[in-house]
């Protein structure tokens, strides 16, 4: 027998380590104590506690919510996010009844020269890590992955199993779910819970949480409002154009820091020992309309002293 064959035989015949008594019991106990996470709502976490969007004008708010909540968590909590680059965006408009939905994600950096290429590469690495099951839930709803360069990235607002999907798969899943939600909404098959009234342009607007049970058993909860008269009578193209304008204007106002913050301490959270404040950002657009977007920020030392 030649050397290669001898080596091959030895390697293949390597002994197996003895399995410790009780290991299977431990693993079974872990399994019993833990929920198997599957068939969970991907959408629910995309929308901030402040509510997502059902009415047409709020599609801007919905997409902006997902972006705004995700990004400050990236790059650790201690750095100020100076530049945000969108890495995923999906919008679905149902013009016949004025329904519209938007979901987005992005990566924030403290480096103002952070490039789109860097963001897209980082997003792809995060996606792969999530697909490999390497995302760790460090706080309820807050996940962490470690990039190949050792950088730890925190994210919230979406589950790893959703982030693990490619953009095409995300779009397909969201489209399927939104189509079903849309049909359920048309058929009145959802539960509505009143949340609060907010004054917008001098008019009190009711805000609700609508709960949809999809055919696969998923329950998706989304924010809803009374609707926006400015969208009525517009064609689909006109609606899309108006929504894009609103998106862009919100983004500009956000960059310029021109918005009002309403802190919501009941939604505050902590990452790596650093407190984050959740707030509603009110953006007044050039046409006088006010858009509400959920967001968060790390608590600075001076802020803590004020408290």
């Amino acid at each position, binding site marked *: 027998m030649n050397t290669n064959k001898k080596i091959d035989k030895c390697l293949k015949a390597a002994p197996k380590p003895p399995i410790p008594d009780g290991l299977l019991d*431990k693993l079974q106990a872990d399994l019993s104590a833990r*929920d198997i996470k599957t068939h969970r709502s991907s959408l629910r976490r995309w929308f901030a506690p402040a509510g997502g969007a059902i009415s047409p004008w709020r599609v801007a708010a919905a997409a902006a919510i997902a972006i705004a909540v995700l990004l400050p968590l990236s790059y650790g909590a201690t750095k100020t996010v100076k530049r945000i680059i969108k890495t995923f965006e999906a919008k679905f408009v149902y013009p016949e009844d004025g329904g519209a939905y938007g979901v987005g994600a992005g990566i924030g950096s403290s480096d103002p020269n952070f490039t789109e290429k860097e963001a897209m590469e980082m997003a792809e690495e995060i996606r792969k890590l999530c*697909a490999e099951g390497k995302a760790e839930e460090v706080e309820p709803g807050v996940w962490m992955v470690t990039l190949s360069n050792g950088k730890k990235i925190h994210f919230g607002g979406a589950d790893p199993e959703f982030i693990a999907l490619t953009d095409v798969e995300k779009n397909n899943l969201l489209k399927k779910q939104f189509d079903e939600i849309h049909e359920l909404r048309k058929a009145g098959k959802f539960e509505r819970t009143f949340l609060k009234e907010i004054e917008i342009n001098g008019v009190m607007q009711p805000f609700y949480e609508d709960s949809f049970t999809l055919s696969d058993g998923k329950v998706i909860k989304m924010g809803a409002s009374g609707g926006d008269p400015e969208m009525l009578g517009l064609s689909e193209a006109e609606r899309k154009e108006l929504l894009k304008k609103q998106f862009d204007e919100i983004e500009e106002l956000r960059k310029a820091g021109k918005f009002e913050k309403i802190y919501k301490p009941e939604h505050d959270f902590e990452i790596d020992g650093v407190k984050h404040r959740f707030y509603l950002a009110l953006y007044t657009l050039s046409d006088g309309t006010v858009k509400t977007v959920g967001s968060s920020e790390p608590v600075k030392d001076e802020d803590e002293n004020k408290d």
Partner: protein
Amino acid sequence: MDNQIKSLFRRVKKVDKNAASELLKIYYADIYSYLRRLCGSRHDAEDLTQQTFLKVWSSLDGFAGRSKFSTWLYRIAHNTYLDWLRKNAVSSQSRPDQWWQECIDKNHGPFVNVAEHQLAQRIYEMVDQFDEDKKHVVHLHYYQGLSIRETAKVLDIATSTVKYRLREVFKALRAKLGVRETGFEQKQTIPIAKGESL
């Protein structure tokens, strides 16, 4: 077997804990063995096995079904081990763990004589001294019985890279065993699974 796994996995996706328990029974020993050999400590291997399965149960939707379930499982185990290695920063050389010596001492297995038995012992020792890259291909392909393609998927590298590393492993083992390299020997095909060649 593949159909049984697929069927079980479909049931697990529907949150059937009995099916999850069945999958666990099928794979836990293999995953433990893999981690035990790598990390060199029984207690660490138990912890890593637990961590691996906890990750599996919490990220089932991350498995798209494009590869075999076992490949995905090994990949999670592999990554769990790498995380552990980074945190512990312990080199394999400094971890004395020679459970396999005891195994060999108690059971000669397929080795027909003492010389073969000693050769096997030397080879396992040498594999333990390899760098992580080489060690992983040996562990997955030989010790765990994964195909070249499955090994490549677990390690997220090309199949050609797996083959290259295995050739390097054999070359290093031959050198350490004192085999004089000749042109003829270098061209020899290393025996591996049916349908695959190095």
